[in-house]
Protein backbone atom coordinates (compact mmCIF):
# COMPACT_ATOMS: atom_id res chain seq x y z
CA UNK A 1 0.00 0.00 0.00
CA UNK A 2 1.15 3.55 -0.71
CA UNK A 3 1.58 6.00 2.13
CA UNK A 4 0.40 9.59 1.83
CA UNK A 5 2.35 12.58 3.26
CA UNK A 6 0.01 12.85 6.27
CA UNK A 7 0.82 9.28 7.25
CA UNK A 8 4.54 9.92 6.88
CA UNK A 9 4.23 12.90 9.22
CA UNK A 10 2.20 10.83 11.68
CA UNK A 11 4.87 8.09 11.75
CA UNK A 12 7.61 10.68 12.03
CA UNK A 13 5.86 12.12 15.06
CA UNK A 14 5.39 8.71 16.70
CA UNK A 15 9.00 7.76 15.98
CA UNK A 16 10.28 11.16 17.17
CA UNK A 17 12.22 11.61 13.95
CA UNK A 18 12.01 15.02 12.35
CA UNK A 19 11.10 14.89 8.66
CA UNK A 20 11.64 17.98 6.49
CA UNK A 21 9.04 18.94 3.91
CA UNK A 22 11.69 18.25 1.26
CA UNK A 23 12.04 14.64 2.47
CA UNK A 24 8.39 13.61 2.71
CA UNK A 25 8.07 12.47 -0.86
CA UNK A 26 11.18 10.28 -0.65
CA UNK A 27 10.06 8.72 2.65
CA UNK A 28 6.60 8.01 1.23
CA UNK A 29 8.08 6.23 -1.79
CA UNK A 30 10.67 4.23 0.15
CA UNK A 31 8.42 3.18 3.00
CA UNK A 32 5.68 2.24 0.53
CA UNK A 33 8.09 0.03 -1.41
CA UNK A 34 9.01 -1.83 1.80
CA UNK A 35 5.34 -2.23 2.77
CA UNK A 36 4.51 -3.51 -0.69
CA UNK A 37 7.34 -6.02 -0.37
CA UNK A 38 6.26 -7.30 3.05
CA UNK A 39 2.65 -7.62 1.87
CA UNK A 40 3.78 -10.92 0.32
CA UNK A 41 3.17 -12.31 3.80
CA UNK A 42 -0.53 -12.38 2.96
CA UNK A 43 0.03 -15.21 0.48
CA UNK A 44 -0.08 -17.62 3.41
CA UNK A 45 -3.12 -18.30 5.53
CA UNK A 46 -2.11 -18.02 9.20
CA UNK A 47 -5.58 -17.93 10.77
CA UNK A 48 -5.00 -20.88 13.05
CA UNK A 49 -1.31 -20.33 13.76
CA UNK A 50 -0.12 -19.08 17.13
CA UNK A 51 2.39 -16.19 16.98
CA UNK A 52 6.01 -17.02 17.83
CA UNK A 53 7.89 -14.41 19.83
CA UNK A 54 10.83 -16.51 21.01
CA UNK A 55 12.56 -18.86 18.58
CA UNK A 56 12.34 -21.78 20.98
CA UNK A 57 9.06 -20.76 22.58
CA UNK A 58 10.88 -20.17 25.85
CA UNK A 59 9.49 -17.80 28.44
CA UNK A 60 11.66 -15.10 29.88
CA UNK A 61 13.33 -16.02 33.14
CA UNK A 62 12.45 -13.96 36.21
CA UNK A 63 15.03 -13.04 38.81
CA UNK A 64 14.69 -12.59 42.51
CA UNK A 65 13.64 -9.07 43.49
CA UNK A 66 16.98 -8.19 45.03
CA UNK A 67 19.44 -5.34 44.58
CA UNK A 68 22.48 -6.70 42.76
CA UNK A 69 24.02 -3.63 41.17
CA UNK A 70 26.09 -1.08 43.03
CA UNK A 71 25.50 2.65 42.64
CA UNK A 72 27.49 3.93 39.64
CA UNK A 73 25.70 7.20 39.03
CA UNK A 74 28.80 9.24 38.29
CA UNK A 75 30.22 6.68 35.87
CA UNK A 76 26.89 6.35 34.08
CA UNK A 77 26.29 10.08 33.87
CA UNK A 78 29.77 10.76 32.53
CA UNK A 79 28.45 9.91 29.06
CA UNK A 80 25.48 12.33 29.23
CA UNK A 81 25.35 15.56 27.18
CA UNK A 82 24.27 17.68 30.17
CA UNK A 83 24.10 16.88 33.90
CA UNK A 84 24.04 18.95 37.06
CA UNK A 85 24.16 17.73 40.67
CA UNK A 86 23.48 14.17 39.57
CA UNK A 87 20.48 15.14 37.43
CA UNK A 88 20.07 15.01 33.66
CA UNK A 89 19.39 18.41 32.15
CA UNK A 90 16.72 18.80 29.46
CA UNK A 91 14.91 21.85 28.02
CA UNK A 92 12.30 23.33 30.35
CA UNK A 93 9.01 21.39 30.25
CA UNK A 94 6.99 23.21 32.94
CA UNK A 95 6.41 26.95 32.74
Amino acid at each position, binding site marked *: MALDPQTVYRISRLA*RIHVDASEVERYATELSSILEFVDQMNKVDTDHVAPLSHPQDRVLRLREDKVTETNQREDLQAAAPAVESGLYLVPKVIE
Partner: protein
Amino acid sequence: MHTKTIKRLCADLNAGEYSSVELAQYYLDRIQRYQSINAFVTVDPEFTLSQAREADKAIRKDKHKPLTGIPIAHKDIFCTKGMLTTCSSKILSNFVPPYDATAIKKCKDSGMVCLGKTNMDEFAMGSSNETSYYGPVKNPWNETMVPGGSSGGSAAAVVARLAPAGTGTDTGGSIRQPAALCGITGLKPTYGRVSRYGMIAFASSLDQAGTLTQTAEDAALLLNVLAGFDPRDSTSVEESVPDYTENLGKDLAGLRIGLPKQYFDEGLDPAVEQAIQESLKVFERLGAALIEIDLPNSELCVPCYYVIAPSEASSNLSRFDGVRYGYRAEDYEDLDDMFMRTRSEGFGPEVKRRIMIGTYALSAGYYDAYYLKAQKLRRLITQDFEQAFERCDVIMGPTTPTPAFELGAKTEDLIAMYLNDIYTISANLSGLPGISIPSGFVNRLPVGLQIIGSYFAEALILNVAHRFQMETDWHQKVPEGFAV
Protein backbone atom coordinates in the same frame (compact mmCIF):
# COMPACT_ATOMS: atom_id res chain seq x y z
CA MET B 1 53.07 -14.78 11.21
CA HIS B 2 49.71 -13.34 10.07
CA THR B 3 48.70 -16.48 8.20
CA LYS B 4 48.73 -18.47 11.43
CA THR B 5 45.51 -19.62 13.05
CA ILE B 6 44.62 -19.00 16.69
CA LYS B 7 45.42 -22.63 17.34
CA ARG B 8 48.93 -22.19 15.99
CA LEU B 9 49.50 -18.81 17.68
CA CYS B 10 48.57 -20.36 21.05
CA ALA B 11 51.15 -23.10 20.60
CA ASP B 12 53.80 -20.55 19.63
CA LEU B 13 53.03 -18.25 22.56
CA ASN B 14 53.18 -21.11 25.01
CA ALA B 15 56.44 -22.36 23.54
CA GLY B 16 57.92 -18.87 23.89
CA GLU B 17 58.51 -18.41 20.13
CA TYR B 18 57.41 -14.79 20.59
CA SER B 19 55.59 -12.77 23.24
CA SER B 20 52.02 -11.53 23.24
CA VAL B 21 53.39 -7.97 23.10
CA GLU B 22 55.34 -8.82 19.93
CA LEU B 23 52.27 -10.47 18.45
CA ALA B 24 50.01 -7.51 19.28
CA GLN B 25 52.54 -5.03 17.90
CA TYR B 26 52.80 -7.06 14.71
CA TYR B 27 49.03 -6.84 14.15
CA LEU B 28 48.88 -3.16 15.17
CA ASP B 29 51.47 -2.48 12.46
CA ARG B 30 49.38 -4.32 9.89
CA ILE B 31 46.25 -2.41 10.91
CA GLN B 32 48.22 0.82 10.46
CA ARG B 33 49.62 -0.26 7.08
CA TYR B 34 46.31 -1.37 5.59
CA GLN B 35 44.06 1.48 6.69
CA SER B 36 42.66 1.82 3.17
CA ILE B 37 40.06 -0.90 3.74
CA ASN B 38 38.60 1.11 6.66
CA ALA B 39 38.07 -1.99 8.81
CA PHE B 40 38.58 -0.27 12.16
CA VAL B 41 36.74 2.61 13.82
CA THR B 42 38.92 2.76 16.95
CA VAL B 43 42.44 1.54 17.66
CA ASP B 44 44.21 2.26 20.96
CA PRO B 45 47.74 0.80 20.76
CA GLU B 46 48.65 1.68 24.35
CA PHE B 47 45.61 -0.17 25.69
CA THR B 48 46.27 -3.14 23.41
CA LEU B 49 49.89 -3.38 24.50
CA SER B 50 49.02 -3.10 28.19
CA GLN B 51 46.65 -6.07 27.83
CA ALA B 52 49.39 -7.95 25.97
CA ARG B 53 51.88 -7.27 28.79
CA GLU B 54 49.39 -8.72 31.29
CA ALA B 55 49.01 -11.77 29.06
CA ASP B 56 52.77 -12.25 28.90
CA LYS B 57 52.96 -12.09 32.68
CA ALA B 58 50.27 -14.76 32.99
CA ILE B 59 52.04 -16.99 30.46
CA ARG B 60 55.38 -16.59 32.28
CA LYS B 61 53.78 -17.51 35.60
CA ASP B 62 52.00 -20.42 33.94
CA LYS B 63 48.64 -18.93 34.97
CA HIS B 64 47.28 -18.63 31.46
CA LYS B 65 44.06 -19.90 29.89
CA PRO B 66 43.75 -21.50 26.44
CA LEU B 67 43.54 -18.20 24.50
CA THR B 68 45.67 -15.96 26.74
CA GLY B 69 47.69 -13.53 24.64
CA ILE B 70 45.67 -13.98 21.43
CA PRO B 71 44.70 -10.68 19.77
CA ILE B 72 41.08 -10.15 18.73
CA ALA B 73 39.14 -7.35 17.01
CA HIS B 74 35.70 -6.52 18.41
CA LYS B 75 32.75 -5.30 16.39
CA ASP B 76 31.93 -1.76 17.52
CA ILE B 77 28.50 -2.91 18.72
CA PHE B 78 29.96 -4.39 21.93
CA CYS B 79 30.34 -2.00 24.84
CA THR B 80 33.96 -1.71 25.91
CA LYS B 81 34.66 -0.03 29.24
CA GLY B 82 36.62 3.17 28.71
CA MET B 83 36.86 2.69 24.94
CA LEU B 84 34.72 4.51 22.37
CA THR B 85 31.73 2.39 21.25
CA THR B 86 29.90 3.97 18.32
CA CYS B 87 27.84 1.23 16.66
CA SER B 88 29.08 3.15 13.58
CA SER B 89 26.46 5.82 14.25
CA LYS B 90 26.75 9.57 14.66
CA ILE B 91 24.35 9.34 17.60
CA LEU B 92 26.94 7.31 19.56
CA SER B 93 30.01 8.98 18.05
CA ASN B 94 31.10 10.26 21.49
CA PHE B 95 29.93 7.32 23.62
CA VAL B 96 32.42 5.79 26.05
CA PRO B 97 30.65 3.00 27.97
CA PRO B 98 31.13 2.67 31.72
CA TYR B 99 31.04 -1.15 31.50
CA ASP B 100 32.05 -4.13 29.36
CA ALA B 101 29.64 -6.33 27.43
CA THR B 102 29.67 -9.90 28.74
CA ALA B 103 31.29 -11.14 25.52
CA ILE B 104 34.07 -8.55 25.96
CA LYS B 105 34.49 -9.41 29.63
CA LYS B 106 34.79 -13.10 28.81
CA CYS B 107 37.53 -12.35 26.28
CA LYS B 108 39.33 -10.16 28.83
CA ASP B 109 39.01 -12.75 31.58
CA SER B 110 40.52 -15.37 29.32
CA GLY B 111 43.52 -13.11 28.68
CA MET B 112 42.70 -12.19 25.08
CA VAL B 113 44.08 -8.91 23.77
CA CYS B 114 41.75 -6.32 22.19
CA LEU B 115 43.16 -4.91 18.93
CA GLY B 116 40.41 -2.33 18.52
CA LYS B 117 36.83 -1.85 17.40
CA THR B 118 35.72 -2.75 13.91
CA ASN B 119 33.55 -0.83 11.46
CA MET B 120 30.02 -2.05 10.73
CA ASP B 121 26.72 -1.00 9.22
CA GLU B 122 25.08 1.62 11.45
CA PHE B 123 23.33 -0.22 14.30
CA ALA B 124 24.01 -3.44 12.32
CA MET B 125 21.36 -2.43 9.76
CA GLY B 126 22.79 -3.31 6.40
CA SER B 127 24.32 -6.02 4.24
CA SER B 128 27.18 -4.09 2.65
CA ASN B 129 28.76 -2.00 5.41
CA GLU B 130 27.77 1.09 3.44
CA THR B 131 25.44 2.51 6.09
CA SER B 132 28.33 3.19 8.51
CA TYR B 133 28.74 6.80 9.68
CA TYR B 134 32.48 6.19 9.27
CA GLY B 135 32.28 5.21 5.60
CA PRO B 136 32.15 1.78 3.99
CA VAL B 137 34.63 -1.02 4.62
CA LYS B 138 36.24 -2.26 1.40
CA ASN B 139 36.50 -5.88 0.41
CA PRO B 140 40.17 -6.93 0.62
CA TRP B 141 39.75 -9.15 -2.47
CA ASN B 142 38.79 -6.15 -4.55
CA GLU B 143 38.54 -2.74 -2.97
CA THR B 144 35.77 -1.60 -5.31
CA MET B 145 33.52 -4.31 -3.82
CA VAL B 146 31.55 -4.45 -0.58
CA PRO B 147 32.75 -6.75 2.24
CA GLY B 148 29.18 -7.63 3.22
CA GLY B 149 27.58 -6.56 6.46
CA SER B 150 26.85 -5.75 9.03
CA SER B 151 30.02 -7.26 10.60
CA GLY B 152 32.00 -6.11 7.53
CA GLY B 153 34.90 -4.62 9.48
CA SER B 154 35.57 -7.81 11.46
CA ALA B 155 35.28 -9.96 8.32
CA ALA B 156 37.60 -7.74 6.26
CA ALA B 157 40.10 -7.55 9.14
CA VAL B 158 40.28 -11.33 9.47
CA VAL B 159 40.67 -12.07 5.75
CA ALA B 160 43.26 -9.28 5.33
CA ARG B 161 45.01 -10.87 8.31
CA LEU B 162 44.84 -7.65 10.35
CA ALA B 163 43.51 -9.74 13.23
CA PRO B 164 43.57 -13.49 13.90
CA ALA B 165 39.89 -13.37 14.91
CA GLY B 166 36.97 -11.04 15.32
CA THR B 167 33.67 -10.89 17.11
CA GLY B 168 30.44 -10.11 15.29
CA THR B 169 26.69 -10.13 15.69
CA ASP B 170 24.11 -11.72 13.42
CA THR B 171 20.48 -10.55 13.26
CA GLY B 172 19.68 -11.59 9.68
CA GLY B 173 23.05 -12.84 8.40
CA SER B 174 25.42 -10.17 9.68
CA ILE B 175 28.17 -12.68 10.57
CA ARG B 176 27.64 -15.33 7.88
CA GLN B 177 27.08 -13.02 4.90
CA PRO B 178 30.26 -10.91 5.33
CA ALA B 179 32.19 -14.11 6.17
CA ALA B 180 31.02 -15.51 2.81
CA LEU B 181 31.80 -12.34 0.85
CA CYS B 182 35.26 -12.03 2.45
CA GLY B 183 36.19 -15.72 2.35
CA ILE B 184 36.43 -16.58 6.05
CA THR B 185 34.61 -18.72 8.62
CA GLY B 186 31.65 -17.05 10.34
CA LEU B 187 29.64 -18.72 13.11
CA LYS B 188 26.24 -17.62 14.43
CA PRO B 189 25.42 -19.81 17.44
CA THR B 190 21.94 -20.78 18.63
CA TYR B 191 19.86 -17.81 19.83
CA GLY B 192 20.66 -17.33 23.52
CA ARG B 193 23.97 -19.21 23.46
CA VAL B 194 26.17 -16.10 23.82
CA SER B 195 25.04 -13.29 26.13
CA ARG B 196 23.54 -10.14 24.60
CA TYR B 197 24.40 -8.07 27.70
CA GLY B 198 26.24 -4.93 26.61
CA MET B 199 25.70 -5.69 22.94
CA ILE B 200 23.82 -2.71 21.55
CA ALA B 201 20.36 -4.05 20.72
CA PHE B 202 18.94 -4.08 17.18
CA ALA B 203 16.20 -6.77 17.14
CA SER B 204 16.26 -8.53 20.47
CA SER B 205 14.48 -11.74 19.45
CA LEU B 206 16.96 -12.25 16.56
CA ASP B 207 20.33 -10.81 17.71
CA GLN B 208 23.09 -13.29 18.45
CA ALA B 209 26.83 -12.76 18.93
CA GLY B 210 29.36 -15.03 17.26
CA THR B 211 32.78 -15.39 15.72
CA LEU B 212 34.72 -14.53 12.57
CA THR B 213 37.86 -16.61 12.16
CA GLN B 214 40.07 -18.28 9.55
CA THR B 215 38.98 -21.80 10.47
CA ALA B 216 36.17 -23.75 12.12
CA GLU B 217 38.68 -25.02 14.66
CA ASP B 218 39.43 -21.42 15.69
CA ALA B 219 35.68 -20.72 15.88
CA ALA B 220 35.36 -23.66 18.30
CA LEU B 221 38.22 -22.34 20.46
CA LEU B 222 36.64 -18.88 20.56
CA LEU B 223 33.12 -20.18 21.21
CA ASN B 224 34.55 -22.01 24.24
CA VAL B 225 35.37 -18.55 25.60
CA LEU B 226 32.14 -16.76 24.60
CA ALA B 227 29.34 -19.27 25.21
CA GLY B 228 27.46 -19.67 28.45
CA PHE B 229 24.59 -18.59 30.64
CA ASP B 230 24.51 -14.98 31.78
CA PRO B 231 22.04 -13.87 34.45
CA ARG B 232 22.32 -10.31 33.06
CA ASP B 233 20.64 -11.32 29.78
CA SER B 234 17.05 -12.44 30.29
CA THR B 235 17.12 -14.42 27.02
CA SER B 236 20.39 -16.20 27.80
CA VAL B 237 19.76 -19.96 27.97
CA GLU B 238 20.68 -22.19 30.87
CA GLU B 239 22.14 -25.03 28.80
CA SER B 240 25.45 -26.63 29.63
CA VAL B 241 28.39 -25.63 27.43
CA PRO B 242 30.36 -28.50 25.91
CA ASP B 243 34.01 -28.27 24.87
CA TYR B 244 33.43 -27.35 21.22
CA THR B 245 36.82 -28.71 20.16
CA GLU B 246 36.09 -32.19 21.53
CA ASN B 247 34.26 -33.46 18.43
CA LEU B 248 36.60 -31.97 15.88
CA GLY B 249 37.94 -34.56 13.48
CA LYS B 250 35.13 -37.06 13.96
CA ASP B 251 34.20 -39.15 10.95
CA LEU B 252 31.32 -37.89 8.79
CA ALA B 253 30.30 -41.32 7.47
CA GLY B 254 26.51 -41.61 7.52
CA LEU B 255 25.93 -37.87 8.04
CA ARG B 256 22.64 -36.85 6.39
CA ILE B 257 22.92 -33.48 4.64
CA GLY B 258 19.63 -31.80 3.76
CA LEU B 259 19.60 -29.56 0.69
CA PRO B 260 16.58 -27.23 0.65
CA LYS B 261 15.32 -27.11 -2.92
CA GLN B 262 14.33 -23.47 -2.39
CA TYR B 263 18.02 -22.57 -1.80
CA PHE B 264 18.99 -23.76 -5.27
CA ASP B 265 16.35 -22.03 -7.35
CA GLU B 266 16.51 -19.34 -10.05
CA GLY B 267 17.64 -16.62 -7.61
CA LEU B 268 21.02 -18.32 -7.24
CA ASP B 269 23.97 -17.26 -9.42
CA PRO B 270 24.81 -20.39 -11.51
CA ALA B 271 28.54 -19.93 -10.88
CA VAL B 272 27.94 -19.86 -7.12
CA GLU B 273 25.78 -22.96 -7.44
CA GLN B 274 28.62 -24.68 -9.33
CA ALA B 275 31.05 -23.92 -6.47
CA ILE B 276 28.56 -25.20 -3.90
CA GLN B 277 27.95 -28.42 -5.86
CA GLU B 278 31.73 -29.04 -5.96
CA SER B 279 31.84 -28.62 -2.18
CA LEU B 280 28.96 -31.03 -1.69
CA LYS B 281 30.99 -33.65 -3.57
CA VAL B 282 33.69 -33.31 -0.92
CA PHE B 283 31.15 -34.27 1.74
CA GLU B 284 29.96 -37.21 -0.36
CA ARG B 285 33.55 -38.42 -0.59
CA LEU B 286 33.68 -38.18 3.23
CA GLY B 287 30.74 -40.58 3.43
CA ALA B 288 27.84 -38.16 3.88
CA ALA B 289 24.49 -38.62 2.12
CA LEU B 290 22.74 -35.76 0.28
CA ILE B 291 18.96 -35.53 0.70
CA GLU B 292 16.65 -33.00 -0.92
CA ILE B 293 14.46 -31.27 1.64
CA ASP B 294 11.59 -28.81 1.47
CA LEU B 295 11.38 -25.49 3.34
CA PRO B 296 8.10 -24.35 1.78
CA ASN B 297 7.94 -20.92 3.43
CA SER B 298 11.50 -19.87 2.50
CA GLU B 299 10.30 -17.19 0.13
CA LEU B 300 8.53 -15.42 2.99
CA CYS B 301 11.53 -15.21 5.32
CA VAL B 302 12.74 -11.84 4.04
CA PRO B 303 9.29 -10.15 4.13
CA CYS B 304 8.67 -11.61 7.61
CA TYR B 305 12.07 -10.37 8.79
CA TYR B 306 11.47 -6.86 7.45
CA VAL B 307 8.49 -6.55 9.77
CA ILE B 308 9.92 -8.19 12.90
CA ALA B 309 13.42 -6.65 12.82
CA PRO B 310 12.33 -3.02 12.21
CA SER B 311 9.52 -3.35 14.78
CA GLU B 312 11.90 -4.47 17.48
CA ALA B 313 14.47 -1.90 16.34
CA SER B 314 11.95 0.94 16.58
CA SER B 315 11.37 -0.02 20.20
CA ASN B 316 15.05 -0.62 21.08
CA LEU B 317 16.29 2.57 19.44
CA SER B 318 13.81 4.76 21.31
CA ARG B 319 16.47 4.96 24.03
CA PHE B 320 18.59 7.29 21.88
CA ASP B 321 17.05 10.60 22.83
CA GLY B 322 20.00 12.89 23.53
CA VAL B 323 19.42 12.83 27.29
CA ARG B 324 21.48 10.07 28.88
CA TYR B 325 24.27 9.46 26.39
CA GLY B 326 25.43 10.19 22.90
CA TYR B 327 24.83 13.05 20.52
CA ARG B 328 22.39 15.89 21.23
CA ALA B 329 21.24 18.37 18.56
CA GLU B 330 22.46 21.94 19.07
CA ASP B 331 19.37 23.86 18.02
CA TYR B 332 15.89 23.02 19.24
CA GLU B 333 12.76 24.73 20.49
CA ASP B 334 11.61 22.50 23.31
CA LEU B 335 12.03 18.99 24.73
CA ASP B 336 10.08 17.23 21.99
CA ASP B 337 11.87 19.19 19.30
CA MET B 338 15.18 18.22 20.92
CA PHE B 339 14.24 14.52 20.71
CA MET B 340 13.17 14.85 17.09
CA ARG B 341 16.18 16.84 15.90
CA THR B 342 18.67 14.77 17.88
CA ARG B 343 17.31 11.61 16.28
CA SER B 344 16.97 12.95 12.75
CA GLU B 345 20.51 14.36 12.85
CA GLY B 346 22.02 11.44 14.76
CA PHE B 347 20.65 8.50 12.77
CA GLY B 348 21.54 7.75 9.14
CA PRO B 349 18.96 7.17 6.36
CA GLU B 350 18.68 3.35 6.65
CA VAL B 351 18.26 3.44 10.43
CA LYS B 352 15.57 6.11 10.13
CA ARG B 353 13.73 4.13 7.46
CA ARG B 354 13.70 1.02 9.64
CA ILE B 355 12.57 2.89 12.75
CA MET B 356 9.74 4.45 10.71
CA ILE B 357 8.67 1.12 9.19
CA GLY B 358 8.75 -0.53 12.61
CA THR B 359 6.83 2.31 14.20
CA TYR B 360 4.17 1.98 11.52
CA ALA B 361 3.96 -1.82 11.86
CA LEU B 362 3.43 -1.52 15.62
CA SER B 363 1.03 1.42 15.49
CA ALA B 364 -2.65 1.20 16.38
CA GLY B 365 -4.67 -0.44 13.63
CA TYR B 366 -1.68 -2.02 11.89
CA TYR B 367 -0.23 -4.29 14.58
CA ASP B 368 -2.29 -7.35 13.61
CA ALA B 369 -1.71 -6.96 9.89
CA TYR B 370 2.05 -6.63 10.23
CA TYR B 371 3.74 -7.60 13.49
CA LEU B 372 1.32 -10.33 14.54
CA LYS B 373 1.10 -11.70 11.01
CA ALA B 374 4.91 -11.86 10.85
CA GLN B 375 5.10 -13.67 14.18
CA LYS B 376 2.64 -16.27 12.92
CA LEU B 377 4.70 -16.78 9.78
CA ARG B 378 7.74 -17.07 11.98
CA ARG B 379 6.18 -20.12 13.59
CA LEU B 380 5.51 -21.71 10.20
CA ILE B 381 9.09 -21.02 9.10
CA THR B 382 10.42 -22.56 12.33
CA GLN B 383 8.17 -25.61 11.92
CA ASP B 384 9.55 -26.13 8.39
CA PHE B 385 13.00 -26.56 9.95
CA GLU B 386 11.75 -28.88 12.72
CA GLN B 387 10.25 -31.13 10.07
CA ALA B 388 13.37 -30.98 7.91
CA PHE B 389 15.58 -32.03 10.82
CA GLU B 390 13.59 -35.24 11.17
CA ARG B 391 15.14 -36.29 7.86
CA CYS B 392 18.66 -34.83 8.08
CA ASP B 393 21.41 -33.93 10.56
CA VAL B 394 22.55 -30.66 9.00
CA ILE B 395 21.24 -28.40 6.25
CA MET B 396 23.55 -26.99 3.57
CA GLY B 397 23.32 -24.45 0.81
CA PRO B 398 24.90 -21.22 -0.42
CA THR B 399 25.31 -18.47 2.19
CA THR B 400 24.50 -15.78 -0.38
CA PRO B 401 22.96 -15.81 -3.89
CA THR B 402 25.96 -13.98 -5.42
CA PRO B 403 29.56 -13.13 -4.52
CA ALA B 404 30.43 -9.60 -3.36
CA PHE B 405 28.89 -6.78 -5.43
CA GLU B 406 30.22 -3.31 -6.22
CA LEU B 407 30.14 -0.49 -3.68
CA GLY B 408 27.10 1.64 -4.46
CA ALA B 409 25.48 -1.00 -6.69
CA LYS B 410 22.48 -1.61 -4.43
CA THR B 411 22.28 1.47 -2.23
CA GLU B 412 19.38 2.88 -4.26
CA ASP B 413 17.42 -0.37 -4.48
CA LEU B 414 16.34 -1.25 -0.94
CA ILE B 415 14.67 -4.54 -1.79
CA ALA B 416 17.62 -5.81 -3.85
CA MET B 417 19.85 -5.06 -0.86
CA TYR B 418 17.48 -6.85 1.54
CA LEU B 419 17.43 -9.95 -0.67
CA ASN B 420 21.15 -10.51 -0.06
CA ASP B 421 20.14 -12.20 3.16
CA ILE B 422 17.61 -14.53 1.58
CA TYR B 423 19.44 -17.71 2.71
CA THR B 424 20.63 -16.47 6.10
CA ILE B 425 17.55 -14.83 7.65
CA SER B 426 15.75 -18.14 8.24
CA ALA B 427 18.31 -19.22 10.88
CA ASN B 428 17.61 -16.02 12.81
CA LEU B 429 13.84 -16.34 12.61
CA SER B 430 14.10 -19.94 13.83
CA GLY B 431 17.00 -19.29 16.24
CA LEU B 432 19.13 -22.09 14.75
CA PRO B 433 22.95 -22.08 14.65
CA GLY B 434 24.62 -21.54 11.28
CA ILE B 435 28.14 -21.27 9.93
CA SER B 436 29.52 -19.99 6.64
CA ILE B 437 32.80 -21.43 5.36
CA PRO B 438 34.93 -20.58 2.31
CA SER B 439 33.91 -22.81 -0.54
CA GLY B 440 35.55 -21.62 -3.75
CA PHE B 441 35.81 -18.52 -5.91
CA VAL B 442 33.76 -16.90 -8.66
CA ASN B 443 35.42 -14.09 -10.65
CA ARG B 444 38.21 -14.03 -8.05
CA LEU B 445 35.69 -13.39 -5.27
CA PRO B 446 34.97 -15.85 -2.45
CA VAL B 447 31.87 -18.03 -2.19
CA GLY B 448 30.45 -19.21 1.14
CA LEU B 449 28.83 -22.53 2.00
CA GLN B 450 26.29 -22.33 4.79
CA ILE B 451 25.77 -25.18 7.26
CA ILE B 452 22.73 -24.95 9.55
CA GLY B 453 22.33 -27.25 12.55
CA SER B 454 19.52 -27.96 14.98
CA TYR B 455 19.35 -26.15 18.33
CA PHE B 456 22.63 -26.22 20.28
CA ALA B 457 24.29 -28.37 17.59
CA GLU B 458 27.27 -25.99 17.32
CA ALA B 459 29.73 -28.82 18.02
CA LEU B 460 28.30 -30.82 15.11
CA ILE B 461 28.33 -28.04 12.52
CA LEU B 462 31.82 -27.00 13.65
CA ASN B 463 33.05 -30.54 13.08
CA VAL B 464 31.34 -30.78 9.69
CA ALA B 465 33.02 -27.49 8.71
CA HIS B 466 36.35 -28.62 10.16
CA ARG B 467 36.34 -31.87 8.20
CA PHE B 468 35.69 -29.89 5.01
CA GLN B 469 38.61 -27.60 5.84
CA MET B 470 40.88 -30.62 6.31
CA GLU B 471 40.11 -31.53 2.67
CA THR B 472 40.20 -28.06 1.09
CA ASP B 473 42.37 -24.94 1.29
CA TRP B 474 39.89 -22.17 0.40
CA HIS B 475 40.08 -20.90 3.98
CA GLN B 476 43.86 -20.39 3.68
CA LYS B 477 43.63 -18.00 0.72
CA VAL B 478 44.80 -14.45 1.46
CA PRO B 479 43.98 -11.54 -0.89
CA GLU B 480 46.98 -10.55 -3.02
CA GLY B 481 47.53 -7.07 -1.62
CA PHE B 482 47.66 -8.37 1.96
CA ALA B 483 49.95 -11.38 1.56
CA VAL B 484 52.94 -9.68 3.17
